[in-house]
């Protein structure tokens, strides 16, 4: 039994999602190797080699891999899978982009958003916006999983796996990278943050979102999230969206401000350890799952919260 993990990395660093995916792999059992694919990945490979329980780190470098192009990841990974029984990828936008392409090339099913490993062939994953948990048993010779990393703890460090490079493959002949527009932020990454402050439609404008949600997040050392309504309305970038079709988070504290709590939003945050909600509508569905609810206009509550936090720190 051997498991291959495709490392989750960005801006030159290995993301903690990789450590969490290693924990999922450990529960499947067998040898664990990590594939670090991209451009200029030496430092990332060094970090991956330090994760406890990892046998080997493979690196592959090309421009197409550096841009995350799915065709390049598939042509790299599919031949490597001859030596593995399972492929695990974190269920990020990039993981979701590449894993199904690899699965189909291997003629196997993908098990999406795995939240628990029951046995080496049986897994639990949410369906219907998390309103049901489905346990499935795979009959395929190889398993391809995307892992909902918020459901797993991070694997410890302390390993010293050997690093070797592999052929990056033919790249992505039919696809050309044009440009990207990334949200620059010094805040913690949304998917792995300990505290998330999220804003909803009630904020009413991008200016209000920036002047209310972001300073509060900074005071709490938090990442910023948003409801779909706030993103659709252009108050916040797409990368902030928490929910069924956006990011799924499970921080120690999720503070929802001006978010009513549609099923689709709850799907992305209901596994948070503590949920707090500020909303002027006492009937907002978010209060049905909030540990702490404050029924008040955010325009009153947030400035008061800023002062109270200053006093407590």
């Amino acid at each position, binding site marked *: 039994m051997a498991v291959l993990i495709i490392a989750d990395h960005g801006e030159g660093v290995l993301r903690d999602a990789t450590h969490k995916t290693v924990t999922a792999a450990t529960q499947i059992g067998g040898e664990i190797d990590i594939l670090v694919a991209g451009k200029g990945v030496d430092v990332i490979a060094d970090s991956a080699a330090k994760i406890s329980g990892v046998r080997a780190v493979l690196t592959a470098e090309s421009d197409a891999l550096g841009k995350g192009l799915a065709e390049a990841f598939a042509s790299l990974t599919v031949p490597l899978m001859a030596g593995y029984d399972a492929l695990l990828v974190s269920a990020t936008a990039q993981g979701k982009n590449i894993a199904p392409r690899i699965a189909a090339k291997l003629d196997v099913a993908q098990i999406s958003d795995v939240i628990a490993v029951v046995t080496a062939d049986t897994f639990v994953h949410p369906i219907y*916006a998390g309103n049901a948990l489905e346990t*499935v048993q795979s009959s395929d010779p190889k398993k391809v999983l995307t892992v909902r990393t918020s459901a797993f703890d991070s694997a410890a460090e302390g390993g010293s796996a050997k690093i070797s490079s592999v052929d990056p493959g033919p790249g992505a002949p*039919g696809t050309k990278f044009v*440009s990207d*527009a990334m949200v620059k932020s010094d805040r913690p990454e949304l998917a792995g943050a300990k505290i998330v402050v999220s804003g909803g439609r009630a904020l009413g404008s991008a200016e209000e979102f920036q002047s209310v949600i972001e300073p509060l997040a900074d005071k709490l050392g938090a990442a910023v999230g948003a409801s779909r309504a706030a993103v659709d309305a252009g108050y916040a970038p797409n990368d902030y969206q928490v929910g069924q079709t956006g990011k799924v988070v499970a921080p120690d504290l999720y503070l929802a401000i001006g978010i009513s709590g549609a099923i689709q939003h709850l799907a992305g945050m209901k596994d948070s350890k503590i949920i707090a909600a500020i909303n002027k509508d006492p009937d907002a569905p978010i209060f049905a799952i*909030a540990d702490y609810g404050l029924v008040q206009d955010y325009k009153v509550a947030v400035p008061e919260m800023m002062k109270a936090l200053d006093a407590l720190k």
Partner: protein
Amino acid sequence: MRWGSKNGSRAALILPKRRSGVMRGRNRKINEGYAAAMKVLVPVKRVIDYNVKARVKSDHTGVDLANVKMSMNPFCEIAIEEAVRQQEKGTVSEVLAVSIGPIQAQDTIRTAMAIGADRGLLLQTDADPQPLAVAKLLKAIVDEEKPDLVIMGKQAIDGDNNAAGQMLAALLDWPQATFASKIEISGKTATVTREVDGGLQTIEVTLPAVITVDLRLNEPRYASLPNIMKAKKKPLEVRDAASLGVDMAPRLKVVTVTEPPKREAGVKVADAAELAAKFKAAGLL
């Protein structure tokens, strides 16, 4: 068939009412004379309505869909809307809507036609094919129809797998552009802006290709009554999915389906200071 088409017209009249888009249908095809010879295939799925909360069956075999309102998957609606807008711009000449599912999925195809799809194909099956089987069925149709582009939803809101589009691209060995928030078609290329981790990425794919769409791509129109009536007259072919000779066997056996752990409402606090004190007490500050 009589039952199916009757049902189809009923469904067309209960189109999603949550949007207040303009009735643009009557303006379509103004560019028809100049349209490029480009065919777009759009898969559409009949799923539990977006506003309905799924309930797990008491025998834990699945989700209870009896007497539940069913609608077109919202991402498929965005995909159809995009194909029709491209046709209105003159970059696309024909839009084919394909659904895989029970006979009632004809309703979903009629809805797609009311938005503007030219014709429909139902691959009828009472099995619930898994994403790999869906991709194989769609590949069989792509091989026959030879579209220049497949535009489809990034995920269906029932299984939430987010896989069929990427799998179809893999089986066809076509480029893929997932999670599109903007699509520009020019000649044999599509320039697609994608919603990725950390922001947006723009790539150019050589056609034929598979594009999967995200929420911000467009806001689907509210089909007009004349277009709903017109949709009833458009060609809709029904074929037995099994007749395509595709391996539809499920690779994943459903062991059990359960309710997620319930979360109870906690306490209400009086003001922000009390809330901040709760954070402090929980060791969060």
